[in-house]
């Protein structure tokens, strides 16, 4: 695991130092803050719990969207800039490269997500906030983020172009988001399958309402593991070409 730690640390520092990292962090925090002020707090008097639920719903959307851009360069940029031979000629296993890259990006996501914690604290000043609700909401957002980052890592392992990686991630992620619609209109048993596969709807809703279900945690960890495994296999098959 030493290699995973070294690669993750380098990746996280690299994203933090890069102009892209700065732009992503700035836009994420600005948009989440603006949205919190205009949409979550707006629209008349609300219960604190409803405000929090709305906040986590909005935050999950921004987290999914920005995770696509955080992960786009994880592998593709290494290929694009010619730095990959450093890792590929070192005694580092493929899964260590993928995990290192993923955790580096995840660390960055964790950091910018935790900066938003001042918003629930503001709600606390004027209302009554349950720390359990806040913790469950952030747990859900971070689990959802890890699934999207894993999809992004897989997409980034397929190509040397970061732009192409973005479109591949969107190509995988958008249907996963929209599966809940298919779940509403399809016949049994397809409706249950689509509803279960949907990345946001039934799996995220309990978290934003302050509830933590094991099945939802298992779903997000399964999605993350599946796409990281797929990324590892892609790297294995491409490194010898």
């Amino acid at each position, binding site marked *: 695991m030493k290699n995973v730690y070294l*690669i993750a640390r380098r990746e996280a520092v*690299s994203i933090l130092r890069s102009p892209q990292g700065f732009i992503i962090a700035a836009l994420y925090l600005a948009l989440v803050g603006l949205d919190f002020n205009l949409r979550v707090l707006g629209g008349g008097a609300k219960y604190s719990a409803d405000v929090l639920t709305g906040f986590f719903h909005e935050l999950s959307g921004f987290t999914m969207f920005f995770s696509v851009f955080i992960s786009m360069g994880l592998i593709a940029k290494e290929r694009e800039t010619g730095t990959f*031979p450093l*890792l590929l000629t070192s005694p580092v296993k493929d899964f260590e490269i993928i995990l290192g890259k993923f955790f580096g990006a995840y660390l960055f996501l964790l950091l910018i997500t935790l900066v938003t914690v001042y918003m629930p604290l503001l709600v606390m000043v004027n209302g009554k906030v349950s720390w359990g609700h806040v913790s469950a909401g952030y747990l859900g957002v971070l689990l959802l983020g890890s699934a999207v980052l894993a999809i992004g890592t897989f997409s980034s392992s397929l190509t040397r172009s970061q732009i192409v990686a973005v479109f591949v991630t969107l190509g995988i992620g958008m249907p996963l988001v929209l599966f809940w619609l298919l779940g509403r209109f399809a016949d049994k048993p397809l409706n249950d399958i689509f509803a279960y596969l949907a990345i946001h709807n039934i799996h995220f809703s309990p978290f934003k309402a302050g509830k933590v279900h094991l099945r939802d945690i298992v779903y997000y960890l399964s999605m993350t593991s599946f796409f990281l495994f797929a990324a590892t296999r892609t790297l294995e098959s491409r*490194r010898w070409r």
Partner: protein
Amino acid sequence: MIIANDLQKSFGDVHALDGVSFQIDKGECVGLLGLNGAGKTTLLRILGCLLTPTAGTMTVEGRDVSGEANYVRGLIGFLPEEPPLYNDMRVGDFLGFAAGIRGIPRTDIGGRVQDAARRCQLDKMIDARIETLSFGYRKRVGIAQAIVHNPPLVILDEPIGGLDPAQIVEMRELVRGLRGQHTVVISSHILTEISQTCDRIMVMQRGKLVGSGTEEELTGGAGKEQHFMAIVRGEKPDVEKALAGVAGVTSIEIEKRADGALDLRIDASGDVRALLSRALVQGGLDLIELARKSDKLEATFLRLTGDKEDER
């Protein structure tokens, strides 16, 4: 140290390597010489565990580069033609990272980084951000990352490509400094660099190994006639008198230059440069220049690579 047996690599219909076999002993400095597209980089990428051969085998210290790739990776330091550098890192941090992922314990990393930086004359650049370095220094950092873990085998793909003359001289000294401490395999399409840096030359053309040996063996010059040129100040009879007693000299041609100095063209059986310089100086002449003519190696290279072109 390295044994390649009937190595083949195809990319679709293109045969980048076509039945290459060779052996490189421990401590040797071997140069891969060939024109662009000869298969040098493909061979080095297989040796660096970046590619797998289509057929044939290659082993490093008895370990197969495909089957036991992760073990072999621990034995090598690799510099591709374009140094794999993270521009956002400082030189010292980058070398520390490279040492870390090559399995150097954290407590030893500082010492290894200092040692690699000293050997590559990067001591003063250790805190510089890589993106601010000149191309020559980037190449040095590339070599430093390849030796920071003190691997038994160092692979350098076109280490002098893109360097200016001053940087080439510095890089030559740097590569020479690696000899003895590592087995070194270098590729280049610049003949003089390979001949001045390596113990042995392997000539490649169209994916095949068309010649292998020392410069003298390749040119057929070992113990046979060699050619030298010298420039001296003095009188023609003094030159003839000074060189008359030099063992091995078979013929001397002397021609007066416009500046009054004398151009000497000397044929001898073997490398007699030391004897020539001593004889000329002891004969009271001012020796301005003395060199072995390298056109024989160039001719040999063209013959080796030209023959194969003709076969096609």
